[in-house]
């Protein structure tokens, strides 16, 4: 299976703390991959490295043939939903959306031709933001901010969506709509990378799972493979099994499951 994101030998150290220790991960294209692991496993640092927010000490990140090396243009293909939305308090929702549109170079029409990645205004309605468009962001509730966050991340038909604890702070309706949207994106062919601690949320979304511990991959493969090697029928239990065992031979990408967990 083609990889959207290929990470090889990624290393990152903050002072004495080694956060990523030669990490090798492949994120398959057109699939939903869950990135899970205990606290301080290196999930956030991995995502930040992919986004160019941290400079790795070594290794290589490739996004569909483009080497991540400081040139920001590859991020046109990424939609990012951070865990804690933090927007300028005095800007209005409409202004924020226009601001991000401008940074993305989005214009309704370019040289007489419609831009290929039209922003998806309908998502503002999907997340019930129509009545909030002219309100300052500082006056909105945490849940509404998270909906703004989602509407922006999915707005540009990105090829790779990186969603960091996307359902945190959303009400049941918002969660349901977000999950429907993730499924729709997968059907469209987008690659989705979700980091989450709520495994029950991932159960019916994720095709693949990457499990990190101490900056290394302990498992990488399909969820079906994970269930098989952990001899369980539940994703939450399967990940719990991974957390219990001391070491597991890593299963890379779509390779046959070779790890024995018992």
């Amino acid at each position, binding site marked *: 299976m083609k990889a959207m994101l290929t990470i090889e030998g990624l290393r990152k150290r903050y002072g004495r703390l080694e956060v990523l220790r030669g990490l090798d991960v492949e994120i398959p294209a057109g699939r939903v991959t869950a990135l899970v692991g205990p606290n301080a496993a290196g999930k956030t640092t991995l995502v930040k490295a992919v986004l160019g927010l*941290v400079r790795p000490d070594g290794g290589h990140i490739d996004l569909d043939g483009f080497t991540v090396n400081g040139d*920001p*243009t590859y991020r046109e293909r990424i939609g990012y939903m951070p865990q804690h939305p*933090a927007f300028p308090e005095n800007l209005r929702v409409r202004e924020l959306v226009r601001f*991000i549109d401008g*940074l993305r170079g989005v214009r309704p029409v370019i040289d007489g031709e419609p831009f290929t990645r039209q922003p998806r205004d309908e998502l503002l309605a999907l997340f019930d933001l129509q009545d909030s468009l002219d309100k300052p962001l500082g006056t909105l509730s945490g849940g509404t901010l998270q909906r703004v966050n989602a509407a922006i991340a999915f707005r540009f038909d990105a090829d790779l969506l990186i969603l960091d604890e996307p359902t945190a702070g959303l009400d049941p309706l918002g969660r349901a709509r977000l999950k429907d949207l993730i499924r729709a994106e997968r059907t469209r062919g987008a690659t989705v990378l979700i980091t989450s601690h709520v495994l029950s949320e991932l159960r019916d979304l994720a095709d693949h799972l990457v499990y990190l511990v101490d900056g290394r991959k302990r498992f990488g493969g399909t969820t079906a493979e994970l269930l098989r090697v952990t001899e369980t029928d539940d994703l939450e239990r399967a990940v719990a099994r991974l957390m219990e065992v001391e070491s597991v031979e890593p299963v890379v990408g779509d390779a046959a499951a070779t790890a024995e967990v018992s």
Partner: protein
Amino acid sequence: MKTAARVARYGLRDVARGRWILVYGIALFGLAQALILLEGDVGRAAAGLVNPVLLITPLVGLLFGALYLYGARDFNRMLLAQPVGRRSLFGGLYAGVALPLLGVELVGLGAPLALAALSHGGAPGVLRLLVVVGALTLSSVALAFLTAVTIRDRAAGMGVAILAWLALTVLYDGLFATISVTLPGSVLETPALVATLLNPIDTARILLLMQFDQAALMGYTGAVFRAFFGSGAGTLVAAASLVGWVIFPLLLAARRFRRADL
């Protein structure tokens, strides 16, 4: 450049809508107006404004610049997840903070002085006051940004910003006053010159007091400065030093921002 201008425009809009900047503008306006009424002469009012504005404007620039950058950290990560380069983002952030401050100082101090100057048939020194205050604001925001990109911890960074202001104002003046009464003047001349050029607030003070020709207010370093350079060359040297105090911290902060893990 286009991206930086866009970031600056939205930053400016966010800052300009904040309540505190209005309060700051009104305070400066009230101070200028009160001195005009008390002195009954625009030139003397402008000279009287030198010491208070040289205390207030760097403090506001340092505190607000650092607070803004610390507060925007999460949002900056989101912006850098878009196809935006760090250089453009940094330039836009700096302009977005510095320009509204400059605007409010220009209106708050400049409007009452200009109006009074018109009715009194001109006021030498008002333009220089505004230019020097503006340069000091640009410098203090640059120093604030340098602090915020160097020190990750917000509380520690704010503490350093306040300490820097104290060191450049109260401690500096106190130290020189103490030394000048204990050591003979001729021993101190060269260190005094160097110290002045290493302190943007003292440089600004000398630049202004040479214009207003208020030797009594110049203090020891001002007197040495004028004796050494004379008014003409002294003005040039002090102006060059002040420009350096804008450019070097800004370049250093931009360099750190480009390389920092965010």
